[in-house]
């Protein structure tokens, strides 16, 4: 027995000190690691298992193989949700990056009131999406809403933004961009300030104009940040839920004819409204795989067009 015990202990280190350190290390990380594994790791495994079952959470689950996935392929509502999510990404991600980059470049100048502007642009980030979405629902109300009245001169005061299937994604995109802009801006600001000053000084000596400095120094050296912002925005875009839930709550949930249903909202509906846990888990798996896929594709693209300064990474 003692020999075995010693052999086991030797696994943790040769000397008593390293052994003690190893034991302390395991004890210190144990609470968080076990908690993470139990509350997040186990559910990941369960997600795979549940996606192969038919289950309404009342009767015991039935193993159905890949049935949920084949049903998914033939489900028009699923494809609609996927399409809506893609449209939302197109409406939000480029706008977000363009605006945040512009604001960050402007705020990176020697200007009075930089701190003030940074605060103002960041305010929506700390606001709850639920509260923000309620406010924006009111802003987009026909007739008495703010947007309608601002657009009254062009005759759009009574435009029913949230009940027209072809328009409903615009208000949802608007609140998303409004809330995300400050977050992206902060990342861009940090990226901009990491660009060495000497490069600009050298460029000025060489006679480069403002736009040229932006095009040939700022943009290439900022590309790792731009890339990061893009990945985070796309991943965030696939998880848009609160806005849809809130902004369509007073009219038709998920938008008229499912016109505002995103992938996440579709998942929620399948699981917690229709009690189809197996089917919804299949949707969850698709969401997971898409997120992974997008990250992987972007990682590949990163090598092509992201410029890293020598020595970085």
């Amino acid at each position, binding site marked *: 027995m003692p020999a075995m015990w010693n052999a086991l202990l030797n696994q943790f280190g040769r000397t008593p000190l390293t052994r003690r350190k190893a034991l302390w290390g395991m004890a210190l990380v144990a609470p968080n690691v076990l908690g993470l594994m139990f509350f997040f790791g186990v559910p990941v495994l369960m997600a795979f298992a*549940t996606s192969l079952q038919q289950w309404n959470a009342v009767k015991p689950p039935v193993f159905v193989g890949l049935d949920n996935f084949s049903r998914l392929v033939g489900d028009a509502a699923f494809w609609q949700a996927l399409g809506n999510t893609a449209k939302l990404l197109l409406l939000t991600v480029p706008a977000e990056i363009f605006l945040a980059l512009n604001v960050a470049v402007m705020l990176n100048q020697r200007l009075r009131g930089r701190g003030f502007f940074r605060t103002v642009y960041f305010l929506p980030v700390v606001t709850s999406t639920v509260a923000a979405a*309620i*406010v924006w629902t*009111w802003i987009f109300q026909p007739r008495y809403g703010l947007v309608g009245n601002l657009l009254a001169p062009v005759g759009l005061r009574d435009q029913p933004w949230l009940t027209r299937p072809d328009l409903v994604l615009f208000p949802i995109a608007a609140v998303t961009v409004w809330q995300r802009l400050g977050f992206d801006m902060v990342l861009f600001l940090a990226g901009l300030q990491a660009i060495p000053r000497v490069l600009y000084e050298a460029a000025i000596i060489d006679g480069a104009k403002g736009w040229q400095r932006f095009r040939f120094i700022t943009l290439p050296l900022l590309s790792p940040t731009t890339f990061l912002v893009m990945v985070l925005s796309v991943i965030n875009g696939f998880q848009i839920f609160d806005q849809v839930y809130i902004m369509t709550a007073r009219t038709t949930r998920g938008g008229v004819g499912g016109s505002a249903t995103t992938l996440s909202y579709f998942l*929620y509906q399948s699981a917690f409204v229709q009690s189809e846990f197996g089917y919804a888990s299949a949707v969850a798996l698709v969401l997971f795989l898409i997120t992974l896929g997008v990250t992987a594709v972007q990682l590949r693209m990163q090598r092509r067009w992201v410029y890293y300064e020598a020595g970085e990474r």
Partner: protein
Amino acid sequence: MNVQATERPPAYTDLSVSLKIVTYLMLAMGAVVMVMPFAWMASTACKPPAELSTLPIRWIPQNPACIENLQQLYKTSPNFSRYMLNSAIMTVGRTLGQLVTCSLAAYGFARYPFPGRNVIFALCLGLLMVPFQAILIPEYLLLRQLGWLNSFAALIVPGAFSAFAMFLLRQAFLQIPLELEESAMIDGANPLQILRFITLPLSGPALAAFAVITVQAAWNDFLFPLVAANTPDTRVVTIGISLLQGERSTPWNLLMMGSFLATVPMLALFVMLQRYFIEGVAMSGIKG
């Protein structure tokens, strides 16, 4: 990415006067758009019902009815204070929980090598790649199995662990000079004492950034509480206001008052602790 850099003077040269004016104009226009929803919320929250449907729209209510609307909100949603309190309990519970579990784990990973350390650490970080919605259903089933649905345990315990906070704190702990910890060890301090009296006090800014990010995320959490704890006793404020929104009959002034109350704590916290919020976000970018 250099986090501290946000405070450094900008890397550009001085602008010409005309360019400066254009920049200010554009920034100001953007700022107006950013603030307008808050102003519209506050303005509507103080309008009497009659002024909700007047054209042209008015920004300043003619007969302000802030107090009346507040009273009316409580008539419509008698549990509103309870919801705010529940949000506060959930927020404090998760933040304190993460502070304990994640600082212990971060310290262990930073300073105490043990077999399999790198694999376990990588496994934890791998969890960051999983979108929360992807495990929402099993999470719900797990809590149901535990009999925790509609309890504070459901709201707090799963949120008391975090791979992200652990990663963030580990980065901060690694910056602390090893000599300080070693000298304390020679003086006979045990790892917990070193963590408590040396490492944590030296990690102030990182802890503050961690705290504000966690507080903000917990206070604004919606989907998880919606699924796990949606009863009058355990409802948090985001669900409280979403219920008002779901009632078609709720007038907009009350909805804006409710949104205002749910937003103000985070806005106040942000204005007080901006620096840490912004550093926290800049750091959260690193995880990507």
